[in-house]
């Protein structure tokens, strides 16, 4: 069985992110494997252990995205591929999805493509679904458990209304929720292998496609205006009285 995991490198969630000169910057905060993608890698490795599959981790990004790929390798993925091309600067999620789909097709014979729920920088949360659309594969999102039963993939989805069981033929795209379980730590053996790994880089030419035109552009990014917040604590002799005073204030200030 062949499994692909698609990951993204993003600024660390603790980074202080500001807009400067129309661009988003995060100072010297480190770039990390997108936390949601760690769950996707975990799901891929769990399925690998259950089915004796091969797991390839791929990413669209710059040279530094190799760090994110190495983290995934250290967790246990068998091999990694970076897709990088200067023409992909400013790509939107749809363009990235098109590129990922091309890469998955180039890898060939892929049964399952895993995605994290969303990237913590763009927060679009649709790249997995878009990739599935380009591939013509069913998309199973918010997976909390994943099983292979014969030639069918059976997943349980964590949705607002509760849990939903969905079956699909292969190949399929799966996006993974946190309920899949804690992502494993990289093992020391994995760390040794990852640091020695030679990660091939595919360009658009290698994929045989032109740079997709982004449909979404970010013409300008600005910081939200600084707000000064004044806090007034309503006091009173009893919760009833405090609530009455608060209600009066809300009406007075025309908040509601």
């Amino acid at each position, binding site marked *: 069985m062949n499994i692909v995991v698609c990951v993204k490198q993003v600024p660390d969630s603790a980074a202080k992110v500001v807009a400067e000169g129309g661009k988003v910057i995060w100072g010297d905060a480190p770039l990390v494997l997108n936390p949601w993608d760690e769950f996707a890698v975990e799901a891929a490795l769990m399925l690998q252990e259950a089915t004796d599959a091969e797991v390839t981790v791929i990413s669209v990004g710059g040279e530094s995205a190799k760090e994110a790929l*190495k*983290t995934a390798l*250290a967790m246990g993925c068998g091999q990694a591929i970076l897709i990088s091309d200067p023409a992909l600067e400013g790509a939107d999620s749809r363009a990235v999805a098109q590129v990922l789909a091309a890469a998955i097709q180039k890898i060939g014979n892929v049964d399952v493509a895993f995605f994290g729920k969303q990237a913590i920088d763009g927060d679009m949360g649709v790249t997995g679904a878009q990739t599935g659309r380009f591939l013509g594969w069913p998309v199973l999102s918010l997976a909390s458990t994943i099983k292979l039963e014969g030639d069918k993939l059976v997943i349980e989805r964590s949705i607002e209304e509760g849990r939903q069981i969905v079956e699909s033929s292969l190949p399929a795209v799966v996006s993974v929720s946190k309920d899949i379980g804690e992502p494993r*730590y*990289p*093992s*020391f*053996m994995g*760390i*040794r292998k*990852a*640091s020695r790994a030679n990660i091939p880089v595919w360009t658009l030419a290698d994929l045989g496609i032109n740079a997709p035109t982004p449909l979404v552009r970010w013409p300008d990014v600005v910081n939200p205006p600084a707000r000064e917040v004044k806090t007034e604590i309503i006091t009173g002799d009893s919760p009833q009285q405090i609530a009455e005073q608060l209600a009066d204030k809300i009406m007075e200030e025309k908040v509601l």
Partner: protein
Amino acid sequence: MDFTLTEEQRMAQQMVREFAQKEVAPIIKQQDRDQQMAPFILSRMGELGILGICLPVRYGGQGMDYIALGLACEELEAVDSTLRVVLSVHIGLNSLGLFQWASEEQKQRFLTAQARGEKIACFGLTEPGAGSDVAAIRSSARREGAEYVLNGEKMWISLATKADHCLWIARTDPETADPHDGLSAFIVELDRPGVRRGDLHGKLGMRAGSTGWIALQDVRIPLENRIGMEGEGFKIAMSCLDNGRYTVAAGATGLIRACLEASVRYANERQAFGRPIGRFQLIQQKIAYMVQSYDAARLLYLRAGWMKNQGLRNTRETSLAKWFATEASFQAASEAVQIHGAYGYSDEYDVERFLRNAKGAVIYEGTSEIHQLMQAAYALGYREDASLRCELPAYDPQVWQTD
């Protein structure tokens, strides 16, 4: 001079940090209050390979280098000193001692299981009447045919009641002119008849750990359990301390960092006189000293680790790193409590635990006073390190990372 860590080292450090922060940090305060070591810690560290981090794969280890050991210690102690003590005794004092001095057969018999975390290791040097004065050791090892008969008591032994193997220093020859030459080193399996052990409580700090005593009464061990030659016990013990001290130095560096991070957080939150207390110069001064201590301590232990990687004798440099980092961590913890004010005096915050833990480190693995005597002796030319019959193997990724 390249001061950057390798990718392997950075990833290893990150992994240990995540383990310590996610799995131990949430429960450690309660363990400290209960004076109990959390039962999962040894097995989990074994599972993750941390207990064999810097030993060759063919001895059951993970094939990382000595710097990775130091980085791991820094991360563990940033959560609690008792976590790092596990590596100090299991790897630093015992396993690396075997790695340096044991025969191939002994390495297969003892080291491999230890590196895999299948057996836990500890170190038996200190006695009720002998700490700094190693020559005053009274534990005896009498040779009888194909066995040694061991008698004696060791005290202040970390993991005494948890360990399977103890590297035990005892006197084989009471008649040597210099008492240092009458000592020998042994591996004692602690499930042998005649072994009794117990825990010591009521310590000022290190309460989430396991410290105890071990008493041997006519314990018989085969000759093959002797490490090195008769009379080499003192040299072996000192070699072991070179590695134990290294882990203490690295750990104390992590403790300084924990004090610094806690103090910065608090100084940015706590308000007095209409502003965060970080705006006041006397608080800033305390923070500045912590930064200075952290950077210096870190460079000192990394240098010692680098020397171990190169196969260079590093007794002096390791002693210096341990002395500096532990004294600095005690100071940093004291100032951290001060920055936190009354809240620092309460166990609601971590800094009082850092202070109590830090005090232990200036006592064990060579008191600060012993290290001062060592450094002066080196500088004054009273002391020189002679080469040893067995040296600590240099790091070789090729050899260490293949079966």
